[in-house]
């Protein structure tokens, strides 16, 4: 007997099974959703040690004394878009915790929520003002000349600018998913930003509204970010751990401070439109950002599947700076997956710790004599697929 072209019996059988499963799932889901959920984010204890206007400097309470390997404190600078809480979403997937466990003395800038009073703040105010004051505070507190600096996304771009302008204060620089080359059509953001009248936008809104930017990010992939993500949630809403992680991610994604108007205007014009930074032509205040002045060791990490900062936007930085000790690492993941996917947790933070310890202890010089492996090597970390639970998989 031939197989039927439309196996109605099998289809109906599947539908019946699915209906039964869905009924059980909904019953369990109501217990999960109505019961207590642990969805707090950024729970690692910290103190606010320095504050200037809305900007705060967090110092994470060390669990143990800094190791001999990494004595120099590390300052992490997040982007002005979204919040730094992403690095500490939950204990099992926390870059902050991984750094603390490795004995790093960790500081982080919290840019706060800009309001009307911040609309005239420029990149100069952020880089040569807030950042420089935070760095000076740490240097003074620890009685040291230089600190380690790590930047994330736009925060990475700020760190690049800072390191070029204040190279005497930075011992090692780590840039992660950091856009420095904006002349690429790899990412939709790069295409769209060229068609945006930023002057009109800032004149109308004052500050760039966080919700409008979030809408733009959702529109980068509506099929996944507005449909499939929530279908995934419906399919797993009886799983308490999944729901908790999902809610944590939702809390982070939609916590979007506005970006100070003048900063946004300059970032779009000088970077996205004219691509001045990578050509060492960008001016901050009255100073030119000369990338050749970045002479400290630089570790540059980016994601192969990053749709916001595609590899082409991140991978040419190390070729344009003055440092001779550079390393590029391309991870097999997306823009956010690099920090929050559980698999990347095992690769990303340990890699940074290892890289820093080699340089901070001062044992790099000994190693370098016998090996050139650290000089401008480009690694691709295999196997870090973004097959993470619903919320993060497409970021």
């Amino acid at each position: 007997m031939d197989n039927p072209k439309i196996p109605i019996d099998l289809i109906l059988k599947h539908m019946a099974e699915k209906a039964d499963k869905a009924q059980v799932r909904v019953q369990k889901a109501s217990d999960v959703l109505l019961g207590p959920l642990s969805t707090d984010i950024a729970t690692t204890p910290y103190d606010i040690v320095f504050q200037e206007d809305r900007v705060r400097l967090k110092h994470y309470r060390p669990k143990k004394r800094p190791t001999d390997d990494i004595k120099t404190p590390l300052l992490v600078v997040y982007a002005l878009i979204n919040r730094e809480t992403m690095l500490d979403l939950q204990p099992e997937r926390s870059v902050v915790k991984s750094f603390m466990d490795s004995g790093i003395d960790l500081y982080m800038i919290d840019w706060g929520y800009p309001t009307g009073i911040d609309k005239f703040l420029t990149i100069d105010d952020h880089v040569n003002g807030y950042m420089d004051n935070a760095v000076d505070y740490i240097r003074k507190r620890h009685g040291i000349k230089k600190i380690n600096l790590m930047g994330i996304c736009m925060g990475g771009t700020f760190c690049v600018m800072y390191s070029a302008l204040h190279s005497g204060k930075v011992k090692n620089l780590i840039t992660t998913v950091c856009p420095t080359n904006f002349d690429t059509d790899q990412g939709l953001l790069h295409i769209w930003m060229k068609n945006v009248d930023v002057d009109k936008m800032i004149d109308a809104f004052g500050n760039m509204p966080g919700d409008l930017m979030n809408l733009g990010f959702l529109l980068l992939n509506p099929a996944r970010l507005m449909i499939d993500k929530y279908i995934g949630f419906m399919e797993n809403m009886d799983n308490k751990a999944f729901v908790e992680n999902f809610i944590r991610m939702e809390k982070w994604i939609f916590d979007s401070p506005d970006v100070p108007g003048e900063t946004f205007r300059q970032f779009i014009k000088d970077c996205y439109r004219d691509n001045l930074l990578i050509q060492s032509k960008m001016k901050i205040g009255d100073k030119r950002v000369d990338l050749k002045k970045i002479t400290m060791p630089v570790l540059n990490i980016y994601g192969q599947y990053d749709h916001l900062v595609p590899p082409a936007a991140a991978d040419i930085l190390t070729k344009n700076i003055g440092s001779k000790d550079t390393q590029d690492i391309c991870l097999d993941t997306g823009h956010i997956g690099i920090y929050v996917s559980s698999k990347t947790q095992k690769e990303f933070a340990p890699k940074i710790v290892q890289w820093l310890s080699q340089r901070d202890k001062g044992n790099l010089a000994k190693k370098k004599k016998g090996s050139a492996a650290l000089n401008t090597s480009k690694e691709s970390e295999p196997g870090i697929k973004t097959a993470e639970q619903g919320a993060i998989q497409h970021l």
Partner: protein
Amino acid sequence: MVNNEALTGEVTTVLQSWLNATQQFWQTVDKDGSLESQPEDRQKNTSKNPPRQTLLSIMKTWGAISNAMSEPSSLNAMVRGIALIPDMTTRITNTGINGYFKLQEQIIDKMGEMGQKTKPYSFENLDYDSFKALSELYEKEIKQILSIPQLGLSRFYQENMNQAVDKFNMLSTSFTEFMSLISLPMEKTFKVLQDQIENMTRQGNLPNDASELYRIWIKTLEGHYMTLFKSSEYTESMGMTLNSLEEFIAARNIVIQDALSSLPIPTNKDMDALYKELYQLKKKIKNLEKTRCYHGE
């Protein structure tokens, strides 16, 4: 024709009687000075009391107008004017209705073509005619009314208000176009899925599990969106929508500012000036502090 003449005759008679009555009324008012308290006060009061003087002057004017209007030649002109009203109304509405029908026609044509034109993973040569018709209809018929120069003391406020209404309409038009573009991948994806189901059924490998079909659908939808987002049509439409949104917000802010300026509430403009001053002052102080630090003070 006969009916029209009879009607005109009736209208003339009614008008004639009404105008005569009006004329008589104003003459009476003027003669007996009924609005004045005492006859002897008339002369004194009219010169001393400006409102009363104005009232009397208005009454006289009305009397003169009634008198002039009751003359047969004026009456005939008025009747002719009344007869022209339907014609004038028809002409005015005709223009709008024609544009509206043109738009309807385009929409109906487009609806008829739905499913025929849509090719998977292709967003070139999109049909913009219906949006163009809508924009043209607005720009030719309505926008001009909002751009009529305003007169008098409140002209600036009225102009600002008209600008806000105009910008809102422009935003609605570009937003409709943008939403139509955004929904296009959905339309195309359903068509592709339909074709795939047809093929799978023909080949006898239709999946038993609906989630398999969902996976095909979402993957195709993602592909369609990616293709659309890279197209110049999308980028242009997005730019235009953002542009209209920004223009509307700017125009709306001006209207709000106008309203707030009459109240004891600071406007955005006031606050911006204050913010800027604060920003500059803070920057100066911070620079001074830094300089002092460097000098070891």
